[in-house]
């Protein structure tokens, strides 16, 4: 009984099991990655010097960012109108649109990538359509384009959901007010709706970009040696070369890039809210 009373006074006690599990199953392993990147095979910065002195590694590093940037842009272009439409249709249609987003969201990434392998392979559906139209066969699988196509489809739900969450809260009377004062639709969109939806754009873009940086399955199955990304490289170092130090260093570089991006995004969002005079 005394335990229960102390829980009532200190609700933080209820979070202890979760925090403990997190420390054991995530904190300690991450510490090991960092430790090994500096100590394996000998103490020092060797692994990091090795990483940044090899052009191959730097190519993969930049490619990882480039692919994520393309995927983020494509997701935004495809997701923005879709999320807007979700706010403009009736409840039944909206449910259908949500379902279209949620089903792929929860269908395993491996299975969805399998579908893309079938579609994009050299004798696949897409190439047969292209050839039937009289064009040259395209190399899609084991290329960067293939990876971008697959990743965009897998990550699109992560863009649409935050966009929709923000757009749902936008007061459309503000847009109507602008138009009643003579603003043309394009202007009222650019000056009113777009700035109001910016938190959603930013939130979605950050999530998609970060998840894109760490993507493993899709690049591994759809990309070839010429489309390797950082995750695959790190995995090869550990599982194939048994080089924990180098693999760990790559992991740390990936993790630090992710955290830096998040920090920048968090700062940027806060400033925006201040400019907008938001109360939240």
């Amino acid at each position: 009984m005394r335990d229960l009373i102390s829980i009532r006074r200190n609700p933080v006690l209820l979070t202890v099991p979760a925090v403990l599990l997190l420390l054991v199953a995530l904190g300690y392993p991450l510490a090991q990655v960092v430790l090994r990147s500096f100590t394996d095979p000998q103490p020092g910065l060797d692994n990091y010097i090795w990483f940044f002195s090899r052009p191959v590694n730097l190519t993969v590093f930049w490619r990882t960012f480039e692919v994520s940037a393309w995927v983020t842009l494509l997701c935004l272009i495809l997701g923005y109108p879709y999320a807007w439409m979700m706010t403009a249709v009736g409840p039944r249609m909206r449910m259908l649109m949500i379902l279209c987003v949620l089903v792929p969201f929860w269908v395993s990434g491996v299975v969805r990538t399998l579908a893309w392998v079938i579609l994009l392979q050299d004798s696949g559906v897409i190439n047969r359509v292209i050839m039937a139209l009289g064009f040259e066969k395209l190399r899609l699988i084991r290329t960067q384009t293939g990876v971008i196509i697959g990743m965009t489809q897998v990550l699109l739900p992560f863009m649409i959901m935050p966009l929709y969450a923000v757009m749902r809260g936008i007061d459309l009377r503000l847009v109507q007010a602008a138009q009643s004062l003579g603003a043309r639709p394009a202007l009222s969109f650019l000056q009113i709706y777009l700035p109001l939806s910016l938190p959603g754009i930013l939130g979605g873009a950050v999530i998609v970009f970060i998840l894109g940086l760490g993507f493993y399955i899709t690049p591994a199955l759809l990309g070839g040696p010429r489309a390797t990304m950082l995750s695959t490289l790190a995995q090869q170092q550990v599982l194939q070369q048994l080089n924990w130090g180098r693999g760990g260093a790559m992991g740390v570089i990936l993790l630090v890039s992710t955290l830096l991006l998040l920090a920048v995004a968090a700062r940027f969002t806060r400033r925006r809210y201040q400019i907008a005079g938001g109360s939240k």
Partner: protein
Amino acid sequence: MSRFQRTLIGLFCAAVALWLVAPTLIIVPISFAEKKSLAFPPDGFSLQWYANLIRNPEWSNSILNSLQIAAIVSVVATVIGTLAAIGIARMKPRGGGVIRAILITPMIVPGVVMAIGIYAVYLDHQLVGSLTGYVAAHSMLAIPFVIIAVGASLSVFDTRLETAAASLGASRITTFFTITLPLIAPGVLSGLLFAFVTSFDEVIVALFINSPSRKTLPVQIFASMTRDSDPTVAAVGTLIFLLTSFIIAAGLWFGTRRRRA
């Protein structure tokens, strides 16, 4: 906005919806292929790849392993995650926010980085390929989803109901099981489903910590895809697709029921 523009955006959205859903559906016809090939459209019709799932121990064992791990994980993650969500909701906003942010980190840490670290620790402690190993790693990954789902339920929960129960003489435990839990049940249930799916689909960590004697289904699918063109992956993919769609439909159904109540 003109009617024309609206129709144009509508068509665009229909295309996006198609692009989201249709590619995955291509695996359904392929799962009935007659020859051992992943070509589309497939020739003939057969159920041999579905039969293969049961007959081939590589597949049947990995399915059973995944189901077992996901079942345990969904219970462990739901209990621990629900407790944490309640704790967070009762803490002061600032402290609760910090704890919540910490517990949600598994969602943003790149999978490979976690996997390398977990593999290193598991090698040191003979946990590679063990049930405990899978359950610990997958529960850690699933807890954020439980916290988010239960947290959403708790945010609309009226704590005065608990005070009322207590003032009428109910003990803390009675209050929890008769007042709090039934009211947040939809959130707990969707957290449970999310935890199950998270574990059942998880592949990166499992790729590192699997052993020949205990492999999960996604690892088996991944291995099969990198090895040859075996339509068994399409058969199992079709089943996963149906199961997941069913679970989401159930989740949405519970979600809408809560709003009506």
